[in-house]
């Protein structure tokens, strides 16, 4: 089995990527090829990147063909039968849950809820590498993955940033009650840069839970000038 390093550094990736994408000035490409001749692991990494790049191109190409022509792979009829049954069950479950739960307050929650967009992810941040990796997952809407990374980091040292984004990951996964507990921790820190956001999302969770008066009180605690706060308060009055 060949041994590969677990991860390429940003600089290594950038260099190989520019070579593989034919985006390297001629002289630099000549030097790079010369280095490849004497460096077998670099040759191997280039070969891997060439395959991965080809795989992404093919994935995009065949997806575009599927969109033009419908699915390209044959699926046995019995699988269509199972899929249809599952779809029918899903429709019935959604219909039942809609019929039971959604009221005016939850409509307001849906109208005002939007996932927090997350923080920018810098290229070389060795001190916060894991946090940024979690942020990439978060931005990919892979909230469970982001939550797992950040929860592990919280064991090494808790910060308001970690608490807030774990709360957001949970909320985006539909775990409103657990998210609310974490947001309460931020609400105890008025100096936190996430304080106002914590109030906003707490109010929305209270709205979702039908706690109208509590939601109003939480919104009234907000000191910022976000017009949505007043707009939502007006609708609740």
């Amino acid at each position, binding site marked *: 089995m060949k041994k590969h390093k677990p991860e390429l550094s940003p600089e290594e990736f950038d260099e190989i990527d520019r070579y593989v994408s034919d985006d390297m000035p001629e002289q630099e490409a000549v030097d790079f090829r010369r280095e490849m001749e004497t460096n077998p692991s670099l040759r191997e990494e280039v070969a891997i*990147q060439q*395959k991965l790049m080809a*795989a*992404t*191109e093919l994935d995009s190409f065949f997806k575009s063909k599927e969109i033009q022509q419908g699915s390209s792979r044959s699926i046995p009829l019995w699988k269509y039968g199972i899929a249809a049954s599952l779809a029918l069950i899903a429709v019935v479950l959604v219909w039942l849950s809609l019929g039971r739960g959604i009221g005016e307050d939850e409509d307001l929650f849906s109208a005002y809820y939007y996932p927090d967009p997350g923080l920018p992810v810098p290229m070389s941040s060795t001190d916060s590498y894991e946090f940024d990796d979690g942020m990439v*997952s978060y931005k990919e809407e892979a909230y469970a993955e982001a939550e797992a990374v950040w929860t592990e980091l919280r064991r090494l040292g808790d910060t308001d940033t970690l608490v807030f984004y774990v709360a957001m990951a949970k909320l985006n996964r539909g775990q409103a009650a657990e998210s609310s507990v974490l947001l309460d921790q931020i609400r105890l820190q008025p100096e936190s840069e996430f304080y106002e956001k914590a109030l906003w999302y707490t109010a929305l969770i209270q709205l979702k839970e039908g706690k109208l008066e509590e939601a109003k009180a939480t919104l009234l605690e907000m000191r910022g000038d976000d017009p949505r706060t007043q707009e939502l308060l007006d609708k609740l009055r």
Partner: protein
Amino acid sequence: MTSKTDLNPVKPTAKEWLETAYAENLPWFERYVAKNSGTSQEAKDIFQDSLSVAWINLRNGKFVGIESDFTAYVRQICKYKWMDELKRKGRFGHSLDLSGVEEPQVESGELEEAFGDLDVLHRSMSSLGDKCKTILNSFYFLKQSLQELSQSIGVTDQSVKTMKYRCMNRLRAAYLQLINTHEEA
């Protein structure tokens, strides 16, 4: 026509070359398979894998040539894979006459390895999230610039660059893990 080299004199654009190879070869291969005891769906499935292997070989320098050479290369791989499929069917009880089927002019050992690798690459791609796929598609297939992409998804150029790096590192990690699992098995 096919040679190993670390110099790649052609700079093919994925979108154009794949489009041409697809348009020129798929109808031909469907007719070819129909004449040789196969269905249209079998032709489509085998064609997709064959075009993929040809494309990977072009990207890693195992195939070097101009666009028309590439079209011919795809046909050779399609024929090879169809012959292989007919032999496989024969092993599972169908009695097939292969005497009329043309022998393809390609190196079979290398192609077998490439088809195995294709499966690993498919599974590696499936492990990526939609956002990563969108970013990589924009860079490598649509050839969008950093600025175009950052504007379209509403983040900074630096964030897009980092996401591309991290997405490719994830794809690489998934690929290497699958390769290692495969080698250990």
